[in-house]
């Protein structure tokens, strides 16, 4: 199982308009920093990421979900979750 890094390792990237007091110490970003997560539902454990999380489902039939937080991305496979997210999305149409 691959756990999302802890809150200490992430910085929330704010908008251009946000005031930042002092300098933000940013670890040099890596391009396309991705990790493969557990492919089976139920194996994800550990602490929850404390900040904005974006989940991207390109095609719910494949079950592939890109979960993004901070400057990292975890690719997760869960057809049931992907299908549920797609059903939620359909409610908005």
């Amino acid at each position, binding site marked *: 199982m691959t756990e999302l890094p802890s809150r200490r390792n992430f910085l929330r990237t704010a908008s251009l308009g946000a005031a930042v007091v002092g300098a933000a110490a940013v670890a040099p*970003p890596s391009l396309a920093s991705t990790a493969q997560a557990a492919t089976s539902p139920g194996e994800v454990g550990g602490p929850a990421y404390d900040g904005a999380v974006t989940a991207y489902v390109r095609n719910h039939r494949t079950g592939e979900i890109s979960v993004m937080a901070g400057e990292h991305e975890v690719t997760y496979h869960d057809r049931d979750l992907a299908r549920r997210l797609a059903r939620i999305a359909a409610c908005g149409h």
Partner: protein
Amino acid sequence: MSSHKEAPGISFDPAADNTDVYAFVPPNDSDDVALIANFLPFEDPAGGPNFYEFGDDVLYEIHVDNDGDGVPDISFQFRFNTIYTIPDSFLYNVGPIESINSKNWNRRQFATVTRVDHGSNKQTRMGHHLPLPPCNVGPFSTPDYVHVANQGIHQLSKDRSFFAGQRAEGFYIDIGAIFDLGDLRPFQNLHVGSTLAAMPGVNGLKALNVQSIALQLPKTDVTRGGYNPKDSSDPRSTIGVWASASRQRSRVYDKDGEVINTGPFVQVSRLGNPLFNEVLVPITKKDYWNSQKPSHDKQFASYVAHPELAQLLPVLYPGVFPHLANLNQSGKPRADLLAILLTGIPAGIIPGFQNYTGPVEADQLRLNMAIPPTGNKPSNLGLIGGDPAGFPNGRRVFDDVTTIELRAVAGVTYPLVAPGYTPDAAAGAITQGLTSSNTDVNAKNTVHYLPKFPYLGTPHSGYYNPANNVPAPAPPR
């Protein structure tokens, strides 16, 4: 901006739009190499209440490939963050900005510079919280602009200089004519169906500014194994340089006006040779090209081997390019352009010159750092003007890359690979009409370049140089 709004997608994202890359050995510091990457095209001098800046949410990079595989060996990363010192004011500044730390200056930007050695995966922070100079607003806000701008030149360490901020646009092109179906004003009387008389070129980028990132450092900082480039025939003397801009994969506009970016950085813009994506890649592939790494540029080689522009020149100027027309008809690939733009020119083609990095086809500025800079009367036509220190051996700020590339596409460089070919006389006469001679290093309406770091001139003041709003002549009724 040899690459300006060149792709449909990036044209809507100026803060991440890579406009020019320069790489050269400075004449006054020939142990060093200067690397410059510019962003944000068509920057009018006048602004307000917000002025031009780098994007806090963009990862800017300058890459160096020193072993010819098209993959960066060293990357210099630049991140920016913006602060407000007077958050309740609507103004950029509430009084004169007399120094880079002025209490009158509200919205300020700072840079962090990191060196990434991809081989060892070692990341070294070269500078942090480095203040950028303000934009050149006008006599009340920035009364001694040059003094304040110079405070934005930072010594990262001995012999390593950094600057990021507004500069005068250094690229010059008669953009309004050239993209009007390839109109070259000095020859527009010969354009198909033309009723226009020949006239001098117009610098369409007159009185514009640009955001510039400049680094100067010892050559040994970027060569393979720290080699000191003295032998121009040694492959370690040549580096490939390009720049890129990346954004995070996901962007969400939250209800309170905040923008949330998440995910890894994804490349949205890149640039090596000037005008590559601009005039060689089909419009439907330009954004895709921007997303790709140079090591994958073999997929675009056909556009270099058979450039559309070469096909158009004989059509647009009937009877002027008969030899080029025959060459086009033969279907032979333009091995000269493939060498210039994708691999570098191997030894044995031009006496005493090579900037070949190997067989991997990759769009990079290839700079042979062992070739000494030309101090006295450099040619703005670079290598085709007999000056091996100029483009396509890297690129200097004053090189007339538009004329050089037009002449190359028109056939002047084909004899390098086919000695029996005679270029059309017109090919060697092509000019934008923006320089008075081959040794003119101050093209029409460019702000004079600086002889020292950061090399691009003082930016135009918004007060003195507002956008040129003189209307075009009214069309006939």
